[in-house]
């Protein structure tokens, strides 16, 4: 007897609930050597921008206790090359595809959405708003309620009602529930929680910040308690809004924790660096843990930590 692992994010349906995390699967090809991409929920692509970008200077990473910092700076080929090469290949593999987009201005997000509107076969768009807004002193969109609203509103209007929008939020805010409400109000169908935390490592040899970009994003198991808290808070405030959870998931038990807190699906990021088979392994372990707890479907487990409590 196999459990029903299917899930939905807005109008998008997925046969399985484990996804790659944006920026942690490159274009998908590299992981295909390790497991068949169509077996997981979907490949979430690295955040793509309008033009090709070289990204930040090296060093771009530092290992930290149970985590790592990265400062990639959104290196990528630009939307046109991406749509010409990467998306068709993924669809050929019968993988489901969630395209992550990033911009420097409100207008850049809309124009990316315009290009995606016409592309057949994409399941959803993840809007990474943890980017510096060049029009407003580099203030990160996700940390500025007005800018966050403007980006999602622009993408929604451009896309029309078709493709589900998943707004990806930063945990580096005073009140994540407030930002979540604002982007849902602006038209997001689902939320991706959480992006990395801003961190820094000082190199004790050079005695200056280790990363070329000075600060970087903290990810991995170290941040899982922050992810669970954010998911729990947002699910409590808006139980009907689906959440794609992420942050330190490396095993089935980690994924289950996020799901019980309120996630409808789970992305695996940093764990894939330690083990490229992590997404499929997490998915298998999750299925076993759900079955062992008597769940007949993944859906019954979503947000269960809230339900038990109110009994």
């Amino acid at each position, binding site marked *: 007897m196999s459990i029903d692992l299917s899930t939905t994010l807005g109008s998008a349906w997925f046969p399985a609930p484990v996804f790659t995390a944006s*920026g*942690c*699967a*490159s274009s998908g*090809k*590299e*992981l*295909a*050597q*390790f497991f068949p991409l169509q077996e997981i929920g979907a490949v979430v692509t*690295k955040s793509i921008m309008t033009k090709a*970008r*070289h*990204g*930040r*200077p*090296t*060093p*771009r*990473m530092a*290992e930290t*206790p*149970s*985590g*790592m910092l*990265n400062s*990639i700076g959104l*290196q990528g080929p630009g939307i046109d090359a991406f749509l010409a090469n990467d998306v068709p*290949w993924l669809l050929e593999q019968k993988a489901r595809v969630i395209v992550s987009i990033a911009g420097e201005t409100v207008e850049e997000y809309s124009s990316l959405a315009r290009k995606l509107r016409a592309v057949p076969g994409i399941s959803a768009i993840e809007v990474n708003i943890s980017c510096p807004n060049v029009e407003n002193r580099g203030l990160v969109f996700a940390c500025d309620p007005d800018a966050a609203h403007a980006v999602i509103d622009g993408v929604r209007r451009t896309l029309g009602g078709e493709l589900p929008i998943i707004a990806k939020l930063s945990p580096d805010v005073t009140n994540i529930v407030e930002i979540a409400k604002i982007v849902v109000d602006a038209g997001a169908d689902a939320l991706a929680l959480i992006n990395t935390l801003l961190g820094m490592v000082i190199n004790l040899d050079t005695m200056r910040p280790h990363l*070329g970009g000075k600060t970087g994003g903290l990810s*991995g*198991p170290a941040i899982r308690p922050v992810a669970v808290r954010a998911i729990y808070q947002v699910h409590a405030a808006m139980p009907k809004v689906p959440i794609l959870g992420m942050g330190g998931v*490396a095993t089935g038990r980690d994924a289950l924790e996020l799901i019980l807190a309120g996630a409808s699906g789970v992305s695996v990021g*940093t*764990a*894939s*660096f*330690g*083990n*490229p*088979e992590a997404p499929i392994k997490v998915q298998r372990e999750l299925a076993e843990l759900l079955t062992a707890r008597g769940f007949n479907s993944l859906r019954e487990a979503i947000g269960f930590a809230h339900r038990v409590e109110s009994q």
Partner: protein
Amino acid sequence: MAGINRHAKTMVATLVSNKRVGQYHQLILDVGGVVNDFRPGNFVAVAVGGDRSSMVLRRAFAISRISDRGAYGGTMEIIVAPHGSGSRWFCAQPEGSEIDVIAPLGQPFGIPTHPVNALLVGGGYGSAPLFGLAEILKDRGCTVDMILGASTAGKIYAPLEGKRAVNTLRIFTEDGSMGTAGRVTDPITELLAANRVDVIYSCGPMGMLKAISALTANTDVVHQCAVEESMACGVGICMTCVLPVADEAGVVTMKRSCIDGPVMDGALVQWDLVGQVLPVNE
């Protein structure tokens, strides 16, 4: 591109031997028949620290030599310098330990189709993959000269068996404690001037690779160097290990040293731009 790392496998390999050699550890792992897919220049990514380790990333090590005979069907040797917590953990594992590895990874050294004069230059543990390479080159009829360098004698890795495959071997140490006092770049200039070299294969610190690239610039000598950048994933999915590399048309982009390397054409690597913000070419 579907062939990215197409021989790579995740596996649990038994550590069959762990010996100190100078300041390094020679570690031999039983990996079975897949060893036949390993090529000189490939590397292995090793999970360190055990199950509940705070170290979440693998460590990369060059595959030094392989053997497909003997008690274990197939073994690979790696030469590890106990550097930080991860490599020290690895060097401290007792024989019989089960080690979680992914191999073979990355682009190997290119092997010439006809006999050439090859110069192999190794810095520190960088010599490790050169001995396996030397055997192959020798089999193809190449002349193989080798120059090894390090700061001090304990950091020269030059096993007796390995020496059989090379025509000449010269050793340089900065403190003069073994071989000639000096750096590996000192003799290269002469060899190049004497037109004694067709291809240089190098592996060692980035500074050494950069210096060799400067020497071979504007010559016909091919310089295949194995670079060493910090890697988070080793399999091409994180974009942390990048280097500025030009294509044939001179357009510079950030290439992943794990998957487009570690062996790269020294003439194309933009050494002066390493660690810099790359100018945008529209």
